[in-house]
């Protein structure tokens, strides 16, 4: 297997760190500290719930912002700065470059998410709650968020291969929102009397990435068991979709005229 994507991935990670992307951790820390101190005073009986819900939601939102806004610039930035040409002059194929860029951003997201998870654990510890076995579910929810972020990054990278950053952002956001409402789209189709529309909404439902699959925040906050088979299914679902997007992105990028 080719190891060419590795240096590209490491460089992408270094670049993200140099660009002070990880500064969002400071905001996350402040958010957690604020929530841990405030919530007990303004609400009743939900100290633990708020910390988990807020922490996991913030991990998801911060990660999404990073995945979309950095993801759409992965290719265009290299073209704009003309660094792509010197890179491709090396023995690096275009698909290897894309996979490397993708892996670099996913690595950044994993590091960022790991630090935020530590912050969440610290906030839970602060509100005076001993860790229990069901807290492992928080890690499952974090894993699902990471799968979601990896998928969003792949979508952003795919669009960035043939479109401008602005349009790629809009397309990625559009797919993300459609993916969240996938079940509703199917339900709307079921409500109509038209078989054609019903079939169309079903096709859309199975075509767009269903981001609802990756939402385990509520289950984690209430300590509800998440079946291992669901973890495996979600992992496979994300892996298949990411592979599909990376293959499509490589195909588009290989044919792109970079002159």
């Amino acid at each position, binding site marked *: 297997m080719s190891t060419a994507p590795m240096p590209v991935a490491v460089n992408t990670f270094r670049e993200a760190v140099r660009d002070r992307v990880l500064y969002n951790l400071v905001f996350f820390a402040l958010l957690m500290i604020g929530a841990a101190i405030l*919530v007990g005073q*303004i*609400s*009743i*009986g*939900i100290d633990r*719930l*708020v910390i988990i*819900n*807020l922490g996991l*939601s913030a991990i*998801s*939102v911060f990660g999404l912002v990073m995945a979309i806004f950095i993801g759409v610039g992965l290719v265009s930035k290299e073209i704009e700065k003309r660094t792509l040409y010197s890179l491709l002059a090396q023995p690096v194929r275009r698909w290897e470059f894309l996979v490397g860029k993708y892996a670099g951003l996913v690595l950044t997201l994993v590091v960022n998410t790991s630090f935020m998870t530590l912050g969440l654990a610290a906030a839970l510890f602060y509100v005076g709650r001993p860790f229990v076995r069901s807290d492992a579910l928080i890690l499952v929810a974090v894993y699902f968020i990471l799968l979601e972020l990896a998928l969003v990054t792949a979508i952003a990278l795919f669009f960035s291969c043939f479109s401008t950053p602005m349009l790629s952002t809009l397309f990625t956001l559009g797919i993300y*929102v459609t993916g*969240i*409402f996938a079940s*509703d789209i199917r339900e709307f189709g079921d409500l109509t009397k038209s078989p054609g529309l019903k079939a169309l909404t079903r096709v859309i439902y199975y075509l767009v990435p269903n*981001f*609802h699959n990756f*939402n385990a*925040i*509520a289950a984690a*906050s*209430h300590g*509800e068991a998440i079946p291992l088979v669901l973890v495996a299914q979600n992992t496979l679902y994300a892996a298949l979709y990411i592979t599909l997007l990376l293959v499509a992105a490589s195909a588009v990028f290989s044919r792109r005229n970079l002159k």
Partner: protein
Amino acid sequence: MTGTMQMRSLWSVLIAVPSLFASIALLQMRIDAETRSIAPQKDDLLLRSPAAIQKMSFGYDSLLADIYWTRAVQYYGARFNTKGATYELLWPLLDITTTLDPKMIVAYRFGAIFLSEKGTAGAGRPDLAIELVKRGIAANPDEWHLDYDLGFLYYWRIKDYESAAKSFLAASKKPNGPQWLAVTAARVAQKGGSLETSRIIWSEIYESNKDPKIRERALETLQGLKAAQDEMGLDQIAAEYQKRFGRFPASVAELRSAGLLNGVPVDPLGYPYVFGPDGKAALNPDSAVVIPQDLNSLPAPSH
């Protein structure tokens, strides 16, 4: 740029930035005052449809539920014991909260208290409280506390002792449901809302709750129930005195002189009871003990 000039510009910034922020804050205060005078602030919910809010939560429905629950608590807290306060937004807020997060047990349990309390202490809507708790039971069938709360609402607010007994029994059969609830259910079914049964139920609320406000409320009610029980006992002694002497006692001292009482009975806060001209025992006017309303509908204590 020379060092002196650099220092001067640094000082200018250090003075200018806080001054500008202070000016902005002052201006905002003026704008707030002006806005308040034009349109007084009114609580409202822009969106009342829980389903619509759920769709718009973009998957962050559990976090939104926490926000709505906090809003419900703040809304209730701002009106609690305020003369003329109404609670018309309490139900929509609880409805949204529990739709967004059907597993949030605390919202059903405390929400039912907020809804069922009478007067200035709550919305005075035990019917909605029962609906809320029933919804909670449907979403969390293994949670015995909700069946217990439903039984309590039937017992204390509606005085439907049959339904209360059924709910207490259902709670005792749930996973981790305490067995004493089966005994309570039997007692409620047999003796309805006797003072003794009420005392047992409130004692359990006091013992099993960690929330200081609920414990305080339970303790106050227990003191009131004890006083009601004492008054009934004193009334019986006063009736005995009337049989012997043809008139009601004017004071506790007369009962002691007649040998019907050994000491001076005092209420849970230590104040001696007094007698009215009709021979009925009453709380000392200086005492802060409050006998729960609607106790007249409860049967006499069983001994």
